């Protein structure tokens, strides 16, 4: 079932924070390279919401310092003023280095990412992918999904988590 390491991604702060809160940051090892812009680093490690040592253990993280002028131009060109700075830098970085997967738990960012032709992926998707890559079993995946609702600060309704769990079981049985 596992397919080894999968893709390259840029992340905003949400998945780093939410996965750290449920002690699942290690699942980000499913990516060959994980790109983190400096604003996202500041919002997570800089604000002690994620431990730097936990990020270092991933061994696939590349930090990026972005030039302000071209970033401002990007925001202006695409009328993105309503998003937060970390989200803006993450979108810009995807565009700059040609990465098509953006990790985010923000619904507005997901919508914008799709407008840019990117694939947005949330914490829920990363947990399920960790299951597919055989880092965890089905029961563990189910518990981690429940933890996203019960333990993490991710804003999601219980119904969504229950439906996700049902879908995961259904699709796993079909394999």
């Amino acid at each position, binding site marked *: 079932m596992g397919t080894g390491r999968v893709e390259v991604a840029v992340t905003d702060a949400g998945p780093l924070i939410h996965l750290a809160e449920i002690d699942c940051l290690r699942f980000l090892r499913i990516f060959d390279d994980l790109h983190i812009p400096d604003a996202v680093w500041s919002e997570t490690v800089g604000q002690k919401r994620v431990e730097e040592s936990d990020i270092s253990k991933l061994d696939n993280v590349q930090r990026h310092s972005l030039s302000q002028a071209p970033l401002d131009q990007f925001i202006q060109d695409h009328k993105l003023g309503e998003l937060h700075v970390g989200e803006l830098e993450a979108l810009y970085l995807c565009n700059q280095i040609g990465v098509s997967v953006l990790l985010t738990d923000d619904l507005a960012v997901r919508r914008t990412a799709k407008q840019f032709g990117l694939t947005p992926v*949330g914490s*829920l*998707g990363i947990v399920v*992918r960790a299951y*597919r890559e055989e880092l965890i079993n089905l029961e563990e995946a189910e518990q981690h999904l429940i933890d996203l609702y019960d333990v993490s600060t991710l804003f999601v309704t*219980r*119904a*969504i988590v*229950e439906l996700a769990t049902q879908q995961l079981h259904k*699709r796993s049985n079909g394999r």
Partner: protein
Amino acid sequence: MAATLTYLEKLVRETDKAESEVMTLAFQTGLRQLWREHVLGHYLRGKIARDEAIETVGIDWVELAERQHEAMMEDLAWALGE
């Protein structure tokens, strides 16, 4: 449980409300949230119509639930390589 007690103590202290009043508000708020999630769950499972869900919990919550559901399905499709 420790966190809950901390919240209670802080709310009593910082809102100048009696502990019993804070407890009553917490009960009402919690029940309202449980009811909302129950209704949205029914809607997302197709057990009630969209109009009924909107009438019960409001359009904002229904639209949020729809967007979360769409995101969840996209995440599953990506994660399982479909």
